[in-house]
């Protein structure tokens, strides 16, 4: 049986990169959605949640068009910054960030909305800025929501297929992820190799979620106790 660790490593590399980027983007975005009084907020909320309902191929298709060198954005990136997004790891990252955005933003948003306003106000009265309040008071108290966002975004990126196939293609070592490799091996009738990749993904996903629910059970219990 022929097999290659590359697709698996690439998958986890992608999931890790995407999760870090999403966390950095997701916290401010969730904060804005949770607390802004902008009357067009619901439009942003709709856009963030679009990947939940759209077929992944639709997002992949639009990204492919937008970033192709024949179109403005792709042309601009390639001629001025020398970056080619389509069929590259960068493309995978961009596609995955967009596609997993709601999985990071929505739990954090819910955590922020449920956070007692009295505690935020207490911090402001003590002279602390919104940023310091977020960093030292809010985030440490919504760890379960942060953990949910991180795990869901990570696990969801591992499980992606449609978006990454559309924008990344199937270049070994560059864009061939485990999910795509499985599809590939099945097409080539290499059921053993496909089965191995599939099993690794199942076991790892199961373990991640298992640890997550185990930890969350403890944090949920302790947050209930403090009520």
């Amino acid at each position, binding site marked *: 049986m022929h097999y290659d660790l590359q697709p698996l490593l690439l998958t986890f590399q992608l999931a890790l990169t995407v999760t870090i980027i999403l966390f950095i983007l997701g916290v401010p975005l969730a904060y804005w959605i949770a607390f802004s009084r902008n009357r067009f907020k619901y439009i942003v909320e709709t856009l963030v949640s679009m990947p939940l309902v759209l077929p992944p191929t639709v997002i992949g298709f639009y990204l492919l068009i937008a970033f192709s060198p024949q179109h403005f954005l792709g042309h601009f990136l390639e001629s001025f910054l020398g970056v080619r997004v389509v069929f590259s790891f960068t493309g995978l990252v961009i596609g995955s960030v967009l596609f997993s955005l709601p999985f990071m933003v929505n739990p954090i948003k819910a955590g922020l909305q449920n956070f*007692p306003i*009295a*505690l935020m*106000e*207490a*911090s*402001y*009265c*003590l*002279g*602390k*800025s919104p940023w310091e309040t977020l960093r*030292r*008071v809010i985030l*440490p*108290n919504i760890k379960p929501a942060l953990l949910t966002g991180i795990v869901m975004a990570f696990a969801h990126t591992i499980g992606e297929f449609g978006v990454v196939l559309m924008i990344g293609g199937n270049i070994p070592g560059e864009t061939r992820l485990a999910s795509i490799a499985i599809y590939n091996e099945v097409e080539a009738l290499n059921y053993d190799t496909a089965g191995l990749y599939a099993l690794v993904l199942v076991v790892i996903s199961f373990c991640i979620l298992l640890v997550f629910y185990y930890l969350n059970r403890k944090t949920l219990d302790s947050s209930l*106790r*403090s009520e």
Partner: protein
Amino acid sequence: MVKLRFKKQMHTPQGNDWLGIDLNISKGEFIALFGESGAGKTTFLRILAGLTQPQEGYIEVDGEVWFDSRKKINLPIQQRRVGFISQENSLFPNMTIRENLEYACVDKKLHGSIEEWIVTMGLKGLEDQKPDKLSGGQKQRVALVRALISQPRILLLDEPLSDLDIHARLNLQDEIIKVYQKTKITTILVSHDLSEVFKLSQKVFVIDHGKITKSGSPQEVFVNNNLSGKFKFTGQIIEIHKDGVLNILTLTIGNHVAKVVASDEEIAGLSVGSKVIVAAKAFNPLILKA
């Protein structure tokens, strides 16, 4: 000196109401805001703290303008430096008691005073606990210390004792008096507990449907002064019981429950919940060593 003049629309279950305030508070004064719930007491404190904005008005504290609707001045909460203590617990659950106090410290050099506060306020031994291990009274005590450590210019107490049992409440009232005498900080207490207002404040403003209806010392406001009795207490009827020709009233006076007899004329117009003055001529009192 605190100068307050503002108007704010309030949405109450009874419909919309205007909170219209125009009053001055001297520096270092301990005043109480007394009134039914929904009268606008909490809104008053929130406006002063900068947590809510009035529609129009002017707020000045110690010569600094905090709010002026005409000049579009609205000093951010962070720069107003108010110590705000509400009835709900506002300690940060992720921090220990000591960390909660350190968080409030404006200057690292003041960390030494934290230890001092911990000892004087009877929190020794609790400083490394998380807030959820503390009783309601202890939490409010920490909240009080935390507010004071941030060196506020004004202390706002929004019924901080209303969720506590009577023992913890009396205890904390004494602590508040102690702290006030030590710091002489301008303090505004919101309360609907008569005995608390009497015990703590020098001046009281009665607020009703968004308007100040009475002000003065607690004695002037709540006790009718044209009686000749030497002993008088203000109390509230909790039960009226008719026993033969006598009426027996059960009253709460301060934190005590007392039974007194009353004639039919005296109880005319009174019902459970009425506030009454009980007075006695002092020609034959019993005096016992306490």
